[in-house]
């Protein structure tokens, strides 16, 4: 059990259908501890569904999900809560609690786990907000008063404030300007390196994928069709991945615009 070659996250044959539409059709994926995996794939290809399955938010129809070698689907509620205690998630749409001010959002998990007091939470929130380039005064606003990009950054601060061991980022940089996008990428890389965390990031931005990921996988028609070195995206030799990475219209992937 030294864990040398025990993946932190291991998916085998993950299948999920919604209303008869097969979204995941046997997803296999290994992410080793301390690695940063980027998942690519067309819109609606099931990337978000995959990580929601890993988090237990969506129940897959069949397949295996293991975290540190333990079968997640067979876990008791308590064991699953334990796993989630060490997990962070940035939702695609932010999912900030609009009934709470920003600072409480950021420190929500720390407060829930009683790791800090409410008095300490404000300072902690200011620190976390500074990390994502936001002023401490933002802490007193309500999420509805923020711009889309600011919401995204607050959500990111919330996801990493508890310093989780496993982090999921669902499109962390969409809706941000290029410079802020690069800053956020740096923050994610820093998070993975400093905390030794394992990260899975969904992104459509190739520059960002190369910066964040050491590995990348591409999902197409419900399966992982390629896994490899993130730095090589665009010249992997896999026609599908290269077409996707370069954003070309012609290639093995056909957009079904009209029938």
């Amino acid at each position, binding site marked *: 059990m030294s864990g040398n070659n025990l993946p932190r996250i291991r998916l085998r044959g993950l299948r999920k259908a919604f209303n008869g539409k097969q979204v995941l059709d046997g997803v296999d994926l290994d992410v080793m501890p301390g690695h940063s995996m980027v998942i690519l794939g067309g819109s609606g290809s099931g990337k978000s569904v995959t990580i929601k399955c890993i*988090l*237990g*938010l969506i129940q897959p129809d069949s397949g295996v999900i293991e975290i540190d070698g333990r079968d997640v689907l067979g876990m008791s509620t308590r064991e699953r809560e334990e796993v989630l205690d060490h*997990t962070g*998630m940035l*939702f695609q749409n932010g*999912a900030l*609690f609009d009934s709470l001010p920003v600072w409480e959002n950021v420190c929500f998990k720390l407060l*829930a786990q009683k790791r800090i007091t409410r008095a300490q939470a404000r300072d902690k929130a200011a620190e976390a907000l500074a990390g994502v380039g936001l002023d401490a005064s933002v802490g007193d606003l309500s999420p509805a008063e923020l711009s889309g990009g600011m919401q995204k950054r607050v959500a990111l601060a919330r996801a990493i404030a508890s310093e989780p061991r496993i982090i999921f980022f669902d499109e962390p940089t969409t809706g941000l300007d290029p410079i802020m996008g690069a800053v956020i990428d740096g923050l994610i890389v820093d998070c993975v390196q400093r905390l030794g965390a394992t990260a899975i990031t969904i992104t459509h931005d190739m520059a960002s994928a190369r910066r964040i990921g050491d590995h990348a996988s591409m999902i197409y028609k419900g399966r992982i069709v390629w896994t490899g070195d993130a730095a090589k995206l665009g010249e992997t030799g896999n026609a599908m991945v290269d077409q996707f990475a370069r954003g070309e219209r012609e290639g093995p992937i056909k957009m079904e615009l009209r029938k």
Partner: protein
Amino acid sequence: MTLAPVDWVASLGRATLNLCRSTGAVVLFALEGLSHLVRPPFHPRLFLRAFMEVAFFSLPVVGLTAIFTGMVLALQSYSGFSRFGAESAVANVVVLSITRELGPVLAGLMVSGRIGAAFAAEIGTMRVTDQIDALTTLSTDPMKYLVAPRLLAAILAMPLLVVVADVLGVMGGFLIGTLKLGFSGPGYLKSTLDFLQVMDVVSGLVKAAVFGFIVALMGTWCGYTSRGGAQGVGAATTTAVVSSSILILALDYVLTEAFFAR
């Protein structure tokens, strides 16, 4: 054409099965929500917020409803009873109708429109914007955080509201009785209190607690299970109000039967 009756039976069967399934699901949901009331950690802050929302902010609407109902009752029973010379029973009719029946039922219906709808809309929006999933990933059980405090708040707040409604309803009757129908103030109060039994008030308060539970349960359930964006949240809100109103009226009969039938 010949198949029509079979289709009809089939769809009736399907509807019945669906009803059983969702009833079972609501019961399980309620049990889980209630179980969190005895398992720490607790969220007193959220309980207080929900309690204020149900008790304090519903006071104006429930109070106004009660006053006007008391006034109308006094007028109606006076003009009705004068046909057989029983005008003196007005005070008794008012206080018994209000405490036993109209206080809890009308407060329940009003609170269902206010609170059931608000719970369903708020939790439903949280559902369709992934906030409930976010709670789970932030080490917080959404049932404990969203549902349990609201159930408890409504169960405890409704009897308080109904006490106020009882007092204001009787006051409405008193105003009409003394100012318009010519009863003497002390005489009206005396006949109000003479025939009133503890059971009349207590049964009303028990009903209130049950109705509060129903309103909060249907509100949180419909919100929690809503899907499909703004439209889904709208549908959840409507379902919450309609189903809790019907359940209130049905349960009112059951509880009355349990308390007073002999």
